[in-house]
């Protein structure tokens, strides 16, 4: 055996430290704070924030409803446009959506805290345990929804409200998709994802088949013959590989898998984490794994991104969050070699990239190399759609790039199949855009079903 031993251990912190590190990132506003913040909204006409919201929430109206002491009305305004308004309030990168265009930026460089107010309104409604939606009158039509993530659930809910009987096929044993398995723990504390799922199912008329995988337990062909319409919200099932030698070594991990374990851990002190962590990638997943391993007690966490700061998919705000959490970010460097010992990764060698070398901050010139020691290396360089289940059989969907091609109605190349969320081409890969896709598709499906058009000749 070599003298190198990977330092990977559970229980690096005290109970209090775990609790502190994984507490609510933005504690909820109390009544007073919400009123003060709501007063800042100008009730804009043709509000730019609403235009910027992928689900088009009537933001000035819901904020006004908060300020008049009608938070439940505010929640209804939100949920009518976005059934996951509660989760979106917590996870939307508002700094690049609604809050980025708030007119208060022009006047004071300080937008109205739309996300926080949205959370205040929806929390108030959920705390009151009030169901505001009901199933529509039975249409006799049946729709299969595959995937119980944001896209699938938004679609299922909207269809149930129209009176269609919905069955959700979900391979996992919980609904919510990445809300449950992917979103950073401190963004959605206290099991919020499942509470939200319960609220959504509370409309009635939605059956769920857990443990059913499209492509294995059911096929697209079967669903098309058993149901009047199909919606696919499959998400992204695989991750991109580094394509480096040694990628199969112990300690080289998929960030999304580790995050899923973290999200499902009953006790964070049982989750082993390395002392030195290297994260490769530049998106939300890279930031999330870096921050969360740091908060689990890793000593050194370095995130390495192959291009400059301004190209990073994670927003400036997310990058700052990583930095204030103690994560070191290195820009403009790509991994060239994984070094290991005894089948376990030991270090990663990087090379500064040339073409994009002028982006800041830079510490070396193109071609120069450096090595980072690591007990764990996380791959977070993007996820991939697994097309097998929709291209394997007789019922083949057209793809665009590597994802499902859809039109504006989120209709696929098959007339009775719609799709939305991360699995379609041209999306934003955000919870909120998944919800919008599900909503738009549901309207189209409803029109299609009511049109009574014969499915297939």
């Amino acid at each position, binding site marked *: 055996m070599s003298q190198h031993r990977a330092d990977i251990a559970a229980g690096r912190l005290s109970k209090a430290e775990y609790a502190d590190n994984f507490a609510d990132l933005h504690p909820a506003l109390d009544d007073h704070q919400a009123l003060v913040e709501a*007063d800042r909204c*100008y009730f804009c*006409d*043709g509000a*730019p924030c609403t235009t910027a919201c992928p689900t088009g929430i009537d933001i000035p109206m819901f904020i006004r409803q908060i300020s008049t002491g009608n938070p439940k009305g505010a929640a209804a305004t939100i949920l009518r446009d976005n059934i996951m308004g509660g989760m979106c309030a917590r996870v939307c990168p508002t700094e690049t959506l609604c809050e980025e265009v708030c*007119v*208060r930026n022009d*006047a004071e460089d300080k937008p109205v805290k739309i996300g926080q107010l949205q959370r205040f309104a929806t929390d108030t409604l959920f705390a009151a345990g009030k169901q505001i939606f009901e199933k529509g009158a039975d249409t006799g039509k049946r729709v299969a929804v595959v995937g119980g993530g944001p896209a699938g659930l938004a679609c299922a809910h909207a269809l149930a409200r129209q009176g269609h009987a919905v069955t959700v096929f979900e391979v996992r044993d919980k609904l919510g998709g990445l809300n449950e398995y992917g979103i950073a723990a401190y963004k959605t504390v206290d099991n919020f994802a499942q509470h939200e799922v319960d609220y959504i199912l509370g409309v009635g008329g939605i059956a769920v088949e857990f443990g059913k995988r499209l492509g294995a337990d059911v096929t697209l062909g079967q669903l098309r013959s058993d149901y009047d319409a199909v919606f696919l919200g499959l998400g992204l099932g695989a991750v991109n590989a580094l394509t480096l030698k040694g990628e199969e070594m112990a300690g080289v991990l998929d960030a999304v898998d580790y995050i899923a374990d973290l999200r499902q851990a009953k006790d964070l002190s049982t989750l082993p984490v390395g002392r030195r962590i290297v994260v490769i990638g530049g998106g939300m997943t890279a930031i999330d794994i870096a921050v969360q391993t740091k908060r689990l007690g890793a000593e050194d966490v370095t995130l390495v991104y192959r291009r400059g700061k301004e190209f990073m998919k994670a927003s400036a705000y997310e990058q700052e969050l990583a930095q204030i959490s103690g994560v070191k970010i290195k820009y403009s460097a790509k991994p060239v070699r994984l070094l290991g010992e005894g089948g376990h990764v030991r270090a990663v060698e990087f090379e500064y990239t040339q073409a994009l070398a002028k982006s800041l901050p830079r510490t070396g010139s193109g071609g120069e190399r450096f090595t980072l020691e690591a007990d764990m290396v996380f791959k977070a360089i993007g996820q991939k759609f697994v097309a097998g289940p929709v291209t394997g059989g007789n019922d083949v969907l057209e793809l665009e790039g590597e994802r499902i091609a859809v039109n504006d109605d989120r209709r696929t190349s098959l007339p009775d199949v719609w799709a939305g969320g991360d699995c379609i081409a041209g999306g934003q890969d955000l919870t909120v855009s998944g919800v919008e896709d599900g909503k738009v598709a549901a309207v189209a499906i409803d029109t299609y079903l009511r049109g009574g058009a014969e499915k297939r000749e």
Partner: protein
Amino acid sequence: MADIRSNFLGIKSPNPFWLASAPPTDKEYNVVRAFRAGWGGVVWKTLGEDPPIVNINGPRYGAIYGGDRRLLGFNNVELITDRPLDVNLREIKQVKRDWPDRAVVVSLMVPCEEQAWKKILPLVEDTGADGIELNFGCPHGMSERGMGSAVGQVPEYVEMVARWCKQHSRMPLIIKLTPNITDIRFPARASKQGGADAVSLINTIKSIMSVDLDKMTPAPDTDGKGSHGGFCGPAVKPIALHMVAEIVRDAETRGYPVSAIGGITTWRDAAEFLALGAGNVQVCTAAMTYGFRIVEDMIEGLKNWMDEKGYGRLDDFIGLANPNFVEWQDLNLNYVAKARINQDLCIKCGRCYVACEDTSHQAISNAKDGRRHFEIIDAECVGCNLCVCVCPVENCITMEPMTSGVDPRTGLPITKDYANWTTHPNNPNRVAAE
């Protein structure tokens, strides 16, 4: 630096800022704190006959708020002082002795009988106080007993009591008027007729502050019931400004001294009342909201503004705005203004647009080249100023007078000639223009 020493009816004070008769002036303790803070004078909380009145033992105030819980006004159901007469008189005497350079005026309210006034006046005179103010304004509690606004609403009573007081006392006499009346000029004329030296106004306005929708009671609430109270604070300032200006310009009371009260919160508010012709000002709600220290800025702010404008003394600008207060029929119908949006300041909230579009004249466009952009359509703009009122950014929209050319809305040429309704062709009672 400007000299803001004030002389009102011969009562001298280092500045024109007095505290109005109210809780801030109910005791020696409060008044001394006020004088230390810099207030020029006080009108002592209204004294009555012994035995003292009683107040309720629960909420006396209800409030109305603007954004961020900024107090726009409140009302109260408090009565006059509830302390024995001799205690008040002793304290007044002490305070006047300790603070000879400050104005100490005593507010009074006793029944409408000559004997009652004859009895109390010498007691007050003995304190060395600078003058008296008769509370003919209190709209609640006392009015049901035939005092306060019950007197102020009947000009004949005002005149009668003023006469008694002038007869039985040598002190300068101010009559405090109630705004709960249709035409404020009548009690003001009566006050002058009766020989009073000045009027002060406004006292509070009868009001219900709000309704508690859980308990179904008007606020403020005493054991499940609410009564009407007197409304005051920034929200009443426009009403007070108008009433003061009316008295100042009335032919029968022109030049009659007025002490202005009602919503005065800043030096600017005070300057506005003085500009309309008030001789000094009195403050209550602002002090009760922020404490006595606000007078520092009132003093400094007024002086700085006077310096900037080149006014050396208060008399240099008192009344300057009053001649510009005219009847509607005297307004120049040939004056044409159009709104202008400063694009550098505009934050594109769209409020001007929706206000004009939904409720007025469809004179603002909201897009240009497919982008949010707000501009005035001169051919539709009537110059009403609504957009200026609703724009959240100060000075972003301004009203610019047209000085030449043709008004694109009416097609009429812009003329420098003054012409008002009295000569307008649409006026059936027009007089021939000269």
